[in-house]
């Protein structure tokens, strides 16, 4: 599964994207797996309410299932316009 990071999430984790092998059923479960890896992940995901997630380029909730998803992206609230 491709996992992408943007803005300060990318900076905290230190890379823009990576391939992750996971059996996580939901976004929240994937986040727990990532947090358990290393301190930089734990720091990036410390406050989930400050983050947004997109599954295959569509905004989703953290309790959304990952079945069939190829691309997960984590980022802070958008500031376009």
């Amino acid at each position: 599964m491709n996992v992408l990071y943007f803005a300060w999430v990318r900076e905290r984790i230190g890379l823009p994207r990576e391939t992750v092998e996971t059996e996580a059923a939901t976004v929240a479960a994937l986040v727990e797996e990532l947090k358990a890896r290393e301190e930089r992940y734990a720091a990036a995901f410390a406050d989930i309410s400050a983050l947004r997630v997109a599954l295959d380029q569509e905004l989703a909730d953290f309790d959304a299932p990952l079945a069939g998803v190829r691309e997960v992206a984590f980022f802070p609230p958008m500031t376009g316009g």
Partner: protein
Amino acid sequence: MQEAPFDAGAELNRFSAGAAGAGAVVSFSGIVRDVEGRLNAMEIEHYPGMTERAIRDIADQARERWSLLDVMVIHRFGTMRPGDQIMMVATASRHRVAAFEAAEFLMDYLKSRAPFWKKEVTDEGKTWVDATQADEEALNRW
């Protein structure tokens, strides 16, 4: 979606000329604002692929909700200077109310639902721009 600058006036004229039957054209231009004279640059990061998809989806929603003859969205990414145009939205309709409402709707959604992130560059360093509660709440009126 583009990194290159654009000419807002030329885009407005082209858009108006193409919107046959329109009685009202509204445009919005977003410009890099020099906050307290200390901004050196604004860097805009985006999510290639999702950005195009999100903008198309927002424009489609506007077309469904209002009777529009045409819609235009231009949004830059990369590094910009104070005074540079960041983005532009235009709407064409027969009557002014639809054109105004659709343009505001597009702006409110682009602000908070299109995957762009702004970073301010000053002499003190770089800072990500925080999303505001007001921008999030602006979506509630639609």
